[in-house]
């Protein structure tokens, strides 16, 4: 973690309750160390995640957004992550067109048993956001 800058950046995580939130818990129980930048919002299912939440977070000042759900076919609600996959892929492709680096938005699938994978994902994503630096969309001018 030595290559992480002293000031943490603002990274929002949207995690489904059944798989990825559990995976993050598993990582915690196993004491898998992670950089401190990520703040997690728990949602029941990745299918609950409206891509607009991601946009809202970025516009409001987040430097990166991480979304994680159950692996495809393993959704607690059977199909939620299938919808999420399409919506999030659509957003991932739109962001660079708007001038926002799509590297700032990552979506993936992590199960409740994959604590180590969670640790690796968080570590790599935070590192990447630090490489990209702050996004600064919040500093807006009043018109």
């Amino acid at each position, binding site marked *: 973690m030595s290559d992480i800058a002293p000031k943490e950046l603002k990274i929002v995580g949207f995690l489904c309750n059944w798989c990825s939130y559990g995976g993050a818990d598993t990582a915690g129980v196993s004491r898998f160390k992670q950089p401190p930048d990520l703040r997690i919002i728990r949602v029941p299912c990745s299918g609950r995640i409206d891509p607009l939440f991601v946009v809202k977070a970025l516009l409001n000042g987040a430097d990166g957004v991480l979304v994680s759900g159950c692996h495809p076919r393993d959704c607690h609600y059977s199909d939620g992550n299938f919808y999420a996959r399409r919506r999030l892929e659509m957003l991932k492709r*739109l962001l660079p067109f708007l001038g926002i680096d799509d590297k700032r938005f990552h979506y993936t699938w992590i199960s409740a048993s994959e604590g180590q994978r969670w640790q690796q994902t968080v570590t*790599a994503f935070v590192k990447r956001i630090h490489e990209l630096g702050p996004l600064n969309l919040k500093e807006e001018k009043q018109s």
Partner: protein
Amino acid sequence: MTVEKLKETVLDTLKDVELVMGYQMGFDALHATPLFIRKKEDAERLIWNPLCVHNLTTYLPSLKKSRVGVVVKGCDSRTIIQFLQEGLITRENVTIIGIPCQGIISVRKVLKEIEYEPVEEVSFNSDSMTIKTLKGSKTLKIEDVWPDKCITCKYPTPLIYDYLIGEPVSFDRGVEVSQVIKELEGKSLNERLAYWQKEFDRCIRCYACRNACPLCVCQDSCIAETREPHWISQRLTLNEKFMFHMIHALHLAGRCVECGECARVCPMDIPVNILKKKINLDMKELFGYVPGVNAEDKPPMYTFNVDEVNIKEHGI
């Protein structure tokens, strides 16, 4: 000749429906305006020329339970197909009068050419138009004043209709991606962000784009104005405007039929349609889906494949 045939068909249709929607002359010679024909004599005012830019199908979902007729161009017909995909209209209730179209004009482009002089008279030849103003008259080739959508048009003949006025035309101008998208894609991320911030900053949040959009089904329930849920405030900041346009674009993802009404009606000349066009390119690449072409299709955001062949997992 087309107009005569059109009138004939409209009168014929009017026997079975409450209302037929077409075009009439507007407040000056450069503008057409929608015409709602309920009585025989209304039909006298019908016109048909490249000024007939409006997508009249916008009114259909609110008339879902009435029997109506509507005059459509090729591009407008795609809206009807999209409505059918989404179950927003009942096919039996709508009589579609299709007109093959060689391209319409962008009033904005014409005004620029005539330097915003008041228009006295407009006349059309096969591929050009002559505009008479106080300062004299000017002849423009129609293709030079096409709106963006006519340049990339693939469906000049309506894809769905009950009557077709005139012979079907077909052409493909070979332009897949509109110029604005190409130019933007050639720019750096920072330049693109600056571009959109500059464009959206002009937005006055009049919601004309939303109201003109045939697929913005929410209308009065639009989350840009509600508190339950409270997505954006009424503050006039760039980010609130940006967010509004993101809501508009993402709600249209995989549904926008590229009729261009949003951009046409924008009083601030913001290229509102471009984001949706860009998303459509991705929808085609990802799901092989083009909105408003086949009534049997399912809009891609409301369905899924268990194995998505074209979505690869992203690494960090």
